[in-house]
């Protein structure tokens, strides 16, 4: 009994799934913005939601934040049916920075903090974290796009939440700002926070995410740990003056999974870590083909993304 009383005043320790979506669909008239999307976000993960513009990323996060109503399906936060008080412990930046234009950055954060029920003494430190302390007394309407975005990130950090939801967090930031936010996200992840991040910037996701879900036109194409989704392959790119002969002898080679040609280059696919460039070179040379191009390529998230979203 004692332990119950003690824990009642502490924030729940999150284990298991932070968020679980169960067959969420959303229609806007004839347009199906989300089509039966289900996946789970494990605690402690950096979960990237990828998809081209208009693929339903923001709609999905909007539903989870109760600002949009799903047409069907349900979701749970921390294994419970969602309710408003849970959102007080989730720091969210959704789509655009939403602030009172006539108030200063500081006063805007005071409103956010009051709604979240967190200590307003957090405000200076979160402003410091996003390098906005100098301009805290300026009206929001005087901020540049990048500063507005920083303020939105500062607001999400109020109350040191265990779960953060970022929708396009680097929108409008300059290259330095992008790098800063990226390292902030990495730092937050290393503190054990769960981060759900929607982005169309693949590079961004690839650099920080542990898990990824890919959406296209409202459909979930794939979801899971990055290593599983990006079944990594070694790709060896080769070319020679006599392309026809190159093709025929490479076809007789052993160990590779697949072969494709494009622009007089041959792409040979190997299971991860098994491609041996020296052996390939020797094999071809011994059979009378001199390579004029030989390169090992790691399959990038970008390639995977295009592969998944193009067909």
């Amino acid at each position, binding site marked *: 009994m004692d332990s119950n009383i003690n824990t009642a005043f502490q924030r729940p320790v999150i284990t298991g799934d932070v968020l679980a979506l169960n067959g969420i669909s959303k229609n806007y008239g004839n347009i199906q913005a989300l089509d039966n999307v289900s996946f789970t976000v494990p605690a402690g993960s950096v979960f990237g939601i990828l998809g081209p513009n208009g693929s339903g990323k923001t709609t999905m996060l909007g539903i989870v934040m109760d600002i949009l*109503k799903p047409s069907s399906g349900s979701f749970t936060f921390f294994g419970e049916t969602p309710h408003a008080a849970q959102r*007080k412990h989730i720091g969210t930046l*959704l789509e655009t920075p*939403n602030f*009172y234009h006539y108030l200063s950055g500081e006063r805007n954060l005071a409103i956010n903090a009051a709604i979240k029920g967190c200590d307003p003494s957090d405000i200076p430190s979160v402003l410091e974290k996003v390098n906005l302390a100098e301009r805290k007394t300026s009206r929001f309407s005087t901020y540049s796009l990048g500063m507005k975005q920083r303020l939105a990130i500062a607001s999400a950090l109020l109350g040191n939440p265990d779960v953060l939801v970022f929708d396009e967090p680097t929108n409008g930031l300059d290259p330095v700002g992008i790098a800063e936010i990226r390292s902030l996200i990495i730092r937050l992840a290393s503190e054990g926070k769960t981060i759900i991040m929607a982005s169309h910037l693949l590079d961004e996701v690839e650099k920080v995410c542990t898990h990824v879900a890919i959406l296209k036109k409202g459909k979930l194409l794939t979801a899971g740990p990055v290593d599983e989704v990006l079944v990594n392959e070694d790709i060896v790119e080769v070319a020679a003056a006599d392309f026809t002969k190159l093709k025929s002898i490479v076809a007789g080679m052993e160990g590779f999974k697949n072969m494709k040609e494009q622009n007089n280059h041959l792409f040979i696919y190997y299971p991860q870590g098994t491609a041996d460039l020296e052996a390939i070179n020797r094999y071809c040379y011994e059979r009378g083909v001199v390579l004029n191009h030989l390169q090992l390529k790691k399959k990038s998230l970008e390639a995977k993304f295009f592969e998944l979203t193009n067909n």
Partner: protein
Amino acid sequence: MLKLLKIEWMKVKNYTTFWVLSILYLISIFGAAYISHLIYESRPKDDKGMTGAIIGKPFDFPDVWHMVSYTSSFLMFMLGLLIIISITNEFSYKTHRQNVIDGWSRKEFILVKMLLTVVISLVATLAVFITAIIFGLQEDAAFSFEKIEFIGYFFIQALSYSSAALLFSLLFKRSGITIGVYFLYSTIIENMLAGLLNKYVDNFGRYLPLETTDNLIRIPVFKMIVSQLTLSYNTEALLLMSLVYLGLYYFISYRKFETDDL
């Protein structure tokens, strides 16, 4: 509840537009009564009480409660405007979304706006109350709370106009169109409809939403003539209809915000 209002206070505390309009509105409550008083003062005074018998003594207690409530009721649009600004601002800044994202339930957001209509109406009513006392004390008759019910009617009218403004804001969302529709509806369209209904549908026009509360405070001067010329009004029925409409404004506003995509 107090916590919610405190957050609403943080939103308006540094909002210049709101304060400029509010202060001008409060001055105008006094101003409207003052202009009427000037007109009243310009009546012929050496006619052996003839005009007095026709006009009455609207600035003496107890009629001053009625008179000042009446002159102030012409400024109802301004009350609605304050509410419209407060709500359409949230839509244009998308802060209604942010409030919900930060952990307010939709219910809390709309509840606070409903409370705002009550608070603003109370402040306006207080201003009318004070103005009536100021004008009443300038006249000969002794202070009296007789006919104080008109202050209550004013409060109901203010609540009706401000909660109608809340509903209009939720329906139209953008400030320009909301202000335009609200202004035209409250000043012209409904009066036109009321005229038509009064003419063709058994005087039903007096029970249109805003008309109902307008009719609680009828013209306070020329009472003898007016009562001969116009319809008879049933105050209890008007009060009942006012409450029905108030309930509807709040209920529809609540349902709409609770179920809409924000």
